[in-house]
């Protein structure tokens, strides 16, 4: 398994990350990747900037556990998670999850699973700056539901 998990302030490049995920393994037939981005609007308010806080140490551990669960559930060849922290602006990339496999079904499922669990299990918190002031983003009910879907499968 080609696994890489990073928490960083710096931006990342999708092509570079996917190339590193693939390495020189010509068994890889499918790569599914997800990129999450800072939107300029949330809940009807303009967002001028965002701050991402995390729990150093636990974050990496939680992400590793999520990736391990994905490996146990699906026949995947590699997985890569890069999550940014600190100050971000609208349009900035927040997170990358990329998964490689022989065939596409496994990569799609494992990539979505990792994102759904990251959203509910990895200790990151978003604070948005809006014209009404700064506010911590509330967890979305739909994220809990997305993660729970996998438990009955």
């Amino acid at each position: 398994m080609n696994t890489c998990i990073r928490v960083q302030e710096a931006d990342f490049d999708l092509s570079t990350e996917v190339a590193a995920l693939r390495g020189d393994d010509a068994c890889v037939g499918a790569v599914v990747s997800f990129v999450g981005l800072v939107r300029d609007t949330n809940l009807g308010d303009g967002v001028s900037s965002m701050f991402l806080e995390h729990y150093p140490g636990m974050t990496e551990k939680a992400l590793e556990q999520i990736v391990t669960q994905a490996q146990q559930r699906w026949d995947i060849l590699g997985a890569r998670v890069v999550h940014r922290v600190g100050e971000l602006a609208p349009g900035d990339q927040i997170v990358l999850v990329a998964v490689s496999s022989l065939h596409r079904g496994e990569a799609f499922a494992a990539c979505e699973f990792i994102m759904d669990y990251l959203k509910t299990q990895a200790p990151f918190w978003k604070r948005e700056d809006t014209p009404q002031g700064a506010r911590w983003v509330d967890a979305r009910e739909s994220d809990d539901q997305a993660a729970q879907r996998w438990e009955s499968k």
Partner: protein
Amino acid sequence: MSIRILYFAGLREKLGLNEESVSLPEGLGTLGELKAWLCANGREALAETPNLRFAVNQNMARETDPVLDGDEVAFFPPVTGG
């Protein structure tokens, strides 16, 4: 019993505190009991945080999970990364 406690996000801001080390009375067995003791000792914001989450030694935990001497306990609101 000595515990290191961390606070994050909105809860950290409300308390004005990132972390603290507390010496706890005997008889505090679970995270829920620890939370109640902290609330009664100036950390009311813990009770005011909806859906408060817990971690023990950097693993997600539940209110009924045990707390042991030397543990690193974290309290925080539901996570919102990604």
